[in-house]
């Protein structure tokens, strides 16, 4: 019984698992210096009390694999995803560690938890959290860790 439990807990999540859990809508609110983006990440959650960790993971997951849609009025230019799903599949262990150990959170410089938007839906709640993400630093980290190939790798 114990072995079964361990086996379950060590089961690595695949890209589709993450995509279904951290599927989020992103609305860019503004850009700052050195690739800093402020955006609101909307996730669907079962409970009224927001799961901020889930929202933050969803924010990083979106920057990594979905990109940030542009909003001209706020000065946001569309940002393509840093990685693609293949990168995830090739480095499944890395991303499990990256998301589960909390390493992802070092790229979020601010999460405005006090002003979280909560919308009641027929089933569950939509939670909107405003986060400030250091996208360029995140991309750099992916390059340093060999997940993303930077321009230097081609020369």
């Amino acid at each position, binding site marked *: 019984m114990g072995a079964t439990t361990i086996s379950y807990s060590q089961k690595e999540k695949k890209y589709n698992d993450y995509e279904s859990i951290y599927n989020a809508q992103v609305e860019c609110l*503004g*850009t700052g210096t050195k690739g800093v983006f402020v955006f609101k990440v909307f996730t669907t959650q079962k409970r*009224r009390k*927001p799961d901020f960790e889930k929202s933050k993971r969803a924010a990083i997951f979106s920057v990594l694999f979905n990109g940030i849609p542009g909003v001209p*009025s706020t*000065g946001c230019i569309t940002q393509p995803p840093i990685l693609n799903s293949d990168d995830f599949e090739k480095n499944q262990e890395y991303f499990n560690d990256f998301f589960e150990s909390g390493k992802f959170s070092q790229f979020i410089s601010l999460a405005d938890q*006090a*002003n979280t*938007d909560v919308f*009641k839906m027929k089933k569950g709640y939509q939670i909107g959290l405003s986060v400030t993400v250091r996208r360029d630093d995140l991309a750099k980290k992916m390059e340093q860790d060999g997940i993303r190939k930077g321009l230097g790798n081609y020369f």
Partner: protein
Amino acid sequence: MNKLIALIFLLMCGIGFSQSPQNNLSGDIPTDYIRPGLLILHNKQGGEFDFNNFKFPSQFDEIKIRNQEFSYSMEFDGLTSTDIFNKINSGEKVSKEEREKAKENDSLYNYIFSKKEYSDIISKFTGEYMASVMEIENGQPNWEKLLERSRNSLTESQRNQLKNLSGGSLGDNAQNLLLDPILDRNYIMVITPYDRTESEDGLGSSVQVSIFRVELAEGNDIQSKKNAFFSKFGNNYDLVKDSQFPVTFLGSGVGYASTIEKQSIFYTLGLSKKRSKEIRTPEEREFDLNTRIIEQGIDIGIRYTDNWKPRAIVQKGMKIALGTKEGLRKDDLYISYERVIKKNGEISNEIRGYDRVKRVGNNDIDLTESDEIGELSKLYPDGGKRTKTAYISMRQPEVGLGTSVFYRNSVGFRLDQRLRFVLNSMIYIEGEFLGSNELIGGSDILFSAGIQKYINIGRKISLVPFAQYGTIFNTQEAEDAKNDSLEDGNANIAGFVGSRLAIKLSPKIQLIPEVSILVGELDTSDLLPSLKTKESYSDRFEDGPYFGFTLRWNN
């Protein structure tokens, strides 16, 4: 009796039309309250007032221009403007013919406003308004001064964005962000006081006041407003001052403002000869009257314009990021809304809790340079459903007046007014109709003044200890005294203490059982060798305890 009427007048002081509050919050509203810019113009057609002398409402960003006065008198079908205001103020309906002339609008006020010359007059002030808003100097916006203004206008969350985006300096993005609260909500309120009257003692004044409100609107959203502004003036900001910007009529109304000398309740009830601690100077009285006139305008306007109502997301512990900067006061009513996404994707705002301000936080700090966070204000529950974290809490204007019908030993009527400086407390006056007086005729009425404090036990029930004191009055005796210039007969004083239990049937209606005892009674006929003309309270109803109930309507 006249003094009791004076007390009622005191309670009503500064209260305009007691229109029912409107809950017109709809759609996906922004959760941030942006302090609107407001220019107050004075139409002097109703008489001279010194409008440089008043307290500007702190929930607005004060816009000042060189000249904020004009005089415009209009005529309509042979009526002068004062006639028109009086006609409307008397509640007289407009005629069919007048309505036809008003075309799309159905009130005379709207007709008056729709007259082109009146809108033109207001529009003439818009260029200077925008030049003032944008702090235009030497053909360019003065960003330093704009930053200074933003300290009053930015919300906490906007401040957070600003600091993150600019890293402390005012870059292009930050400038862009800075413009949002400044260009987004701008209003002009035209105040026209008329029919000023002075009290007999020369220490009080009252005035009728009409209010017109417009919004400076060019484009529907902030981005189109910015685009329209910069495309027109981006190359030469000097043109702003002499330009005219479109205005959108928001609404109009009439109200009543007054100022009277503060005097003790005991003096008002005739129980003391000491009138007042100090008499105000004429300047102080003028300041008070003008401030009440402005408050009237804000009170009327705030009922119909959501952007004027301070609002914030409810944080843990029923706290909101509003405070002194937004002009919060103790006991202000706030309604919380839950945002619900419907099946068709529309967002509706469902009313949940009725709360009041328990503690006003000091948030009057530099929001752009300081790391300090403004103090949050705290709410306390006062009806409706439970207010949960992340609901939107929005100010709901109210008169603060309660009217009640009660039965103690006989039927009575009570009028109460929220005190505000003592939390959840009210002063009240009441008249208990004791019945006919067989000896001298007429009816005996116990007129009392009292104080009560609501101690909320949850949202629906409150324990309400109270104390009151009053005199028995006879209608026939008063009539005789009036005709013969005689003093009223023996007074017969009765004081009660007790407790009520307010059961809030709805946010508006309360059922209130009560128990009280007679604690202070002075039967003056026992002291004087005169004919006892009025029975004392205990003569009629014994010593108590007395049980009764009240039906109270919260205004």
